[in-house]
């Protein structure tokens, strides 16, 4: 069941300009646009590279949220999947995992290239990647929860964004802090990374159940 949904969602995400490329393209575009707008000042770029990458990652996650449940709710496949399983939390988990695999993971994979374009100092790359790896799972889980809550409001991105942004902010702040302190400030780096991991773990054990409950209240 879990695997079936995961597999289907992965298929859909690479099919016909599906979600995976969408997030990736948006991530790349956001970074290109900003660096194009900032112009050819290399020192400035190096300074803002890590924050820009984190901000872009967060924005592209935010934008991908309405494909978690909304499309399924509209075409009736959410009904089918919901009715097919005895353990709805598996359905939610599959959705969150597939969201991370099609959004978080590709972003992390694309980061080295984009970091190069942004002139990020070489020693900053590993901390950045680590911070993204620890932080993006939390983003996917929070996003899944927000999508579940806003289910009946079709394409209600406004509410979704307003709900998600406050929860995303701590991740962003600690993510940037970890990425920036990586090279030189060992203890700050460690504490930020620990916070990110704790936040992700906490989301993992609580939010799927909260999401199931939200969907249950929203079925119509």
């Amino acid at each position: 069941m879990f695997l079936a949904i995961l597999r289907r969602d992965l298929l859909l995400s690479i099919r016909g300009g599906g979600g995976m490329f969408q997030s990736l393209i948006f991530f790349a575009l956001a970074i290109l646009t900003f660096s194009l707008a900032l112009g050819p000042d290399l020192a400035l770029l190096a300074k803002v590279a890590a924050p820009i990458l984190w901000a872009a990652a967060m924005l592209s996650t935010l934008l991908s949220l309405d494909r978690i449940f909304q499309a399924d709710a509209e075409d009736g496949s959410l009904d089918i999947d919901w009715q097919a399983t005895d353990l709805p939390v598996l359905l939610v988990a599959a959705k969150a995992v597939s969201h991370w695999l099609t959004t978080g993971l590709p972003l992390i994979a694309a980061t080295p290239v984009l970091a190069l374009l942004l002139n990020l100092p070489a020693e900053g790359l590993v901390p950045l990647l680590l911070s993204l790896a620890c932080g993006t799972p939390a983003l996917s889980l929070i996003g899944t929860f927000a999508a579940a809550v806003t289910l009946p409001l079709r394409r209600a991105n406004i509410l979704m964004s307003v709900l998600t942004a406050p929860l995303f902010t701590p991740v962003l702040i600690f993510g940037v802090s970890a990425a920036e302190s990586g090279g030189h400030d060992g203890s700050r780096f460690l504490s930020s990374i620990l916070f990110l991991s704790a936040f992700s773990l906490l989301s993992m054990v609580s939010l799927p159940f909260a999401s199931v409950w939200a969907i249950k209240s929203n079925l119509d």
Partner: protein
Amino acid sequence: MTSVVPPAPSRSNSIYQMANPERFDRLAQGVIPWIGGIAALLAVTGLYLGLFVSPEDYQQGATVRIMYVHVPAAWMALFCYTTMTISSVAGFVWKHPLADVAAKVTAPIGATFTLLALITGSLWGKPMWGTWWAWDARLTSVLVLFFMYLGYIALWQAIDDKARAARLGAIVCVAGFVNIPIIKFSVDWWNSLHQPASVIRADGPSMPGSMLTPLLVMGLAYSALYVWLLLIAMRGEIADRRLERLTKDEPGNAKVSGLRKL
């Protein structure tokens, strides 16, 4: 128009209603080896002149030799897009199916030249400007050109109906043409890291002959290479469509409805 011509089996393959692709195919088959030979000859000459005969630059030293690969690649990047635009317009105005095919298969070739210009440019940029990449108008606009090629290729791939893909590709290509002058003149309009034109300019080239000659030879070599690749790719595309038509017309697939009064 109405009753004389039997209904076309499929518009997307209407290319076969004209005898002319077959003629093109035969013609191309004869010409391809010759063009390939010419391209190889020019390339060998150009590389020899460029790498061994021409002088080193008094500022840049031996790295200047990257020029003989970089500059013609950059020219071809612009030239291929222009060719695509012209073919698209031709396909649109005269409904000549070969023009659509030419536009379609030029895109990957142009994308490759663009990528080559980008890579050689960055290789050159590291010693010259101290960085692989900078967000400067010229470099960025070439990167954008690369994306335009990719977008055009993706459009063809995403749409199953060939006739429709040709129509949409044509209009996208023409709309994107505004970027070509921007790339060309980007060095003049913005203060760019990249140097301004020294060969193709209104008041004639401003480069010493010992460098200009190999550069021009390499330019010709790249052009011949393009024509060679173009002809090969066009033949391939035509063969593909013929194959597709054959499989589509298999008995059983041709269920065409008509009206019957009850």
